[in-house]
């Protein structure tokens, strides 16, 4: 148990936090790609998904069923939010819409407080099992689940948006609303679907990550902020970039804490973020020449 094992632990710790940030970042980037919106309510879909699953599991439903049902609930919620709150103001400018998502997140968090109370809840890991031990360091199996599900999400999203008619249509709507509607694509349908998708993926992120943390009505805020940071490192345009950036963020955090200072690690990480932004203003993985919105 010499010097080596704790260095490996730093890596595993980074992967653990990183997996949380990455999955959250993925949901944020997907939402951005389909609606060109920075959605502050994603943190709440994250929590609603997780807490709904906690409730369903506590009522005796098997995990996979609870999982699927919770995603569904979140998707319905997302669609409702779009139809009732976003549609009326969809032409009022991006700034207004973003502030609306802030108001929505406040309302959702306030509702979660009333529904699930103030206590923290636990969700069991998806597979029972001892921590994985490598070279004297340990990793929780749930982290592998998160990584696996993240890759699955990436695959499904890629397939959907590249290969299915509906997916291509939604992308068209996002890139050029007028052109798309001229081609006969229902922009209303696309908007509802994009919110449903976004909420669903946010909820999926929450449920998958929940076993690592403890969940209460306010638990979505931190992952969302870290997700935003990862998104700015990876670039808004790239979903794969978001994943890499999320893990990078977690690992950089861990090694900063481990090797430099645990008191000032946040200061250092944010300073690094600013420097990254100065050097690569559109994120590490943005394609050059492409004009970001």
């Amino acid at each position, binding site marked *: 148990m010499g010097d080596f094992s704790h260095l490996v632990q730093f890596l595993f710790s980074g992967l653990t936090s990183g997996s949380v940030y990455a999955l959250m970042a993925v949901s944020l980037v997907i939402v951005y790609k389909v609606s060109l919106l*920075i959605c502050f309510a994603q943190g709440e879909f994250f929590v609603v998904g997780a807490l709904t699953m906690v409730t369903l599991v506590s009522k005796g439903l098997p995990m996979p069923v609870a999982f699927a049902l919770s995603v569904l609930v979140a998707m319905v919620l997302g669609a409702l939010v779009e139809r009732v*709150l976003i549609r*009326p*103001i969809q032409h*009022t*400018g*991006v*700034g*207004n819409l*973003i*502030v*609306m998502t*802030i*108001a*929505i*997140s*406040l*309302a*959702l*968090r*306030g*509702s979660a*407080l*009333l529904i699930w109370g103030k206590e923290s809840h636990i969700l069991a890991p998806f597979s029972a099992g001892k921590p994985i031990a490598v070279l004297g360091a340990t990793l929780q199996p749930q982290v592998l689940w998160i990584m696996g599900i993240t890759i699955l999400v990436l695959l499904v999203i890629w397939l959907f948006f590249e290969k299915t008619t509906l997916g291509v249509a939604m992308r068209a709507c996002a890139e050029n609303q007028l052109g798309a509607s001229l081609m006969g694509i229902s922009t209303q349908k696309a908007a509802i679907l994009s919110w449903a998708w976004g909420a669903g993926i946010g909820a999926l992120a929450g449920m998958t990550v929940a076993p690592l943390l403890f969940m209460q009505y306010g638990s979505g805020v931190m992952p969302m*902020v870290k997700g*935003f*940071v990862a*998104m*700015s490192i990876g670039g*808004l345009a790239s979903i794969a970039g978001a994943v890499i950036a999320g893990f990078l963020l977690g690992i950089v955090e861990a090694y900063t804490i481990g090797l430099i200072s645990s*008191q*000032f690690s*946040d*200061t250092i990480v*944010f*300073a690094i*973020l*600013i420097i990254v*932004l*100065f050097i690569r*203003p*559109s*994120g590490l993985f943005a394609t050059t020449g492409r004009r*970001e*919105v």
Partner: protein
Amino acid sequence: MKLLAKYWWIILLLFIALYPPTLGGMSPYRAGVLIFVGIYVILAVSLDLLMGYTGQISVGHAAFFAIGAYVSGILTVKCGVSPLLAMLAGMGLSAAVAWAMGRPVLALKEYYLAMATLALNEIIVTLIIGLQWLTGGASGLRDVPSFSIIGFSFDNQIHYYYLVWAIVALVVASSIVVARSSFGRTLIAIHSDETAAKTFGIDCAAYKVRVYVLSAIFASIAGSLFAHHMGFLAPDDFSVFTSINILVMLYLGGIGTIYGPALGAVFLKLLPEVTLQFQDYEMLMNGVILIIILVFVPKGLFGIVTGIKNRFVTRGAG
């Protein structure tokens, strides 16, 4: 009637001046609430200069609020400096930080600019926590004295109310002057089309930095006033969430109109006075009320009051 419309701001000033002895009933508590309102009006207006006129998104304005507050707090508590001098020192430091960070930060676009300002906010807050020997750390800085000018101490809430609102009036007035000056028009030109502005030989970056510095100075003033009003400072009040609150005030009131964000600040700070009775339901109620306003008055509260001209010129921050 037309006269009334033209000089409505005189009525407003009269209202502010006469509030404490009339509706306020000389209550130190009501004066206290309105002091907080005034401080946030300054913050909102300062952010509007930056966001409303140049379209530069900042999600970290509380950083300068914090610098002003902590410089005032530390200098008056630990070094016995006079509050007025401390406030000037805070303004100086804020200006310096804004000037140094200005060019590289403001060169970023939209989302990335927002994240850079967020990062700056976080850095300031984590430094405040980390440098415990200087700032009191997360446990806070105690015993900040009341504001005083050459011996006259503003212990009395009602006196401080007048001081704060006098400063608010000055800040709002100077912001209006800046917005309507050729400097302001240049900013709007840069916002509308930066490339075109550059072809006219305008040094866009320099203008943006100047506005950033000005907004930082105003925010710092608000911070100093805040420190002397609270008597106690903790980093919790200067987080990114405070910055986001200020942002919400901007959109609530009507971005780019100076008066709009002031109105937004008044509304957002007075709203809890009503909803606090609902305890557990307070968070939900605040969210719902905000949603209702955003849906029914998307141009902001001030949009009800005035014409569309201003809104056409400034396209908001996106």
